[in-house]
């Protein structure tokens, strides 16, 4: 295995494009090193992105959003007060991943690129309308986070393409987001169902909303029908029932020992209700 430490994303993309064998990018390594150890993945070229300037930074964009470097660990995300205040749902999703030790290394970008339908940090990004900046042989492009997952363990990135940053849009006024997941224990487990809700209020009425579900389909995805169920409402019981039904209708989960199809489907509706209420409260100024 050749170990590379490029000093720019252009160089990283070039290395990946020229590589003949199996290539992996290394950020936090909490998935890649496990796969290497298990023999699932034996890269010929391992491209460590951490020597590229800025990959550990969280910075304000000119538009008033955030640019999150690909090597920012979960612990740094949680410790960033301003980011957490604006996008608590995004931060709490990442914070649910693993132990303190894992949080010291694991990254949003890695969680996204690992392609797990149960990735806890991804529904929050999808609901937030986050985008990724992608550097490739043809230059730089941006794409919605929602377009990156392509199936369990798969992404839509092309050979030679590498995510060079995650971009969160400006939070704006009267917005709130939240992420909830169900696991059979209190922590340190993989989501059986995950749900993120991001909304904006006009007075007491939901003016905009995005609902994303995780672990109930081959990819994490937006559920526009669930968002439509609460837009124009004050999140009264009728709206919550409609949201619950739309979330359940969007489920096509696997059936395994961690959750049956019926269970995952029902829980998706319950989490959508609860996450919507938390997001609503946060849009009203709740800080919890």
């Amino acid at each position, binding site marked *: 295995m050749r*170990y590379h430490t490029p000093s720019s994303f252009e160089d990283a993309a070039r290395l990946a494009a020229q590589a003949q064998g199996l290539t992996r990018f290394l950020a936090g390594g909490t998935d890649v090193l*496990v796969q290497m*150890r298990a023999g699932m993945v034996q890269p010929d070229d391992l491209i460590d992105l951490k020597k590229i300037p800025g990959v550990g930074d969280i910075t304000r964009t000119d538009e008033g959003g955030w640019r999150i470097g690909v090597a920012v*660990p979960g612990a740094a995300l949680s410790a960033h007060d301003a980011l957490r205040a604006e996008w608590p749902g995004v931060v709490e999703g990442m914070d649910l991943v693993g*132990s303190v*030790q*894992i949080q010291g290394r694991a990254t949003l970008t890695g969680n996204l690129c690992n392609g797990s339908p149960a990735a806890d940090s991804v529904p929050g990004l999808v609901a937030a309308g986050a985008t990724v900046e992608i550097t490739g042989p043809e230059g730089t492009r941006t794409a919605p986070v929602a377009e990156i997952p392509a199936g369990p363990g798969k992404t839509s990135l092309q050979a030679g393409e590498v995510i060079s940053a995650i971009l969160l849009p400006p939070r704006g006024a009267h917005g709130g987001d939240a992420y909830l997941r169900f696991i059979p224990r209190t922590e340190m487990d993989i989501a059986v169902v995950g749900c993120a809700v991001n909304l904006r209020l006009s007075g007491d009425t939901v003016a905009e909303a995005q609902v994303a579900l995780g672990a109930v389909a081959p990819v994490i995805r937006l559920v526009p029908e669930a968002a439509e169920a609460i837009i124009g409402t004050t999140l009264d019981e009728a709206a919550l029932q409609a949201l619950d039904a739309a979330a359940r209708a969007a489920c096509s989960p696997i059936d395994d020992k961690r959750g049956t199809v019926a269970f995952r489907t029902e829980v998706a509706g319950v989490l959508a209700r609860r996450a919507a209420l938390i997001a609503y409260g946060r849009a009203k100024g709740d800080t919890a």
Partner: protein
Amino acid sequence: MSKIHVTTTVNGDPVEFLADPRETLLDCLRDHLGLTGSKEGCGTGDCGACSVTLDDRLVCSCLVLGVEAEGRRVDTIEGMADADGLHPLQRKFIEHAALQCGFCTPGLLVAAKALLVQNPDPTEEEVRYGLAGNLCRCTGYDKIVRAVMDAAAEMRQEAA
């Protein structure tokens, strides 16, 4: 397979070693530097027996490549006691009998130290969540949690 020359700092001392790029930091600490305090339990970041700090951030050294330590600062269990004696956490682990087989102990001590740097006055719940990345199959955790709470109190100079 060509090896890579790595220069880093371990427990305050400058060190260098030659690493195969596939070797983990844990492999390098144990096999190249003779620092066998950090243990390999699972090798996949689940058990925490290999916990070290990398530039003051708690990590599993089995999930870090040795070559990634270049220019960084690594602190391991071997650096915990100083010339004056054991760290308060180490003394309290002995006092409370917070270990049986001892395999998880180095990782738990390193993780507990990192926890108390972040939060010198943790609740029992915070200790349990903070150490959830360290598995112990002997003690049932209760004595470990008591030892950490007691050490924290002593380090804050309060009687527990």
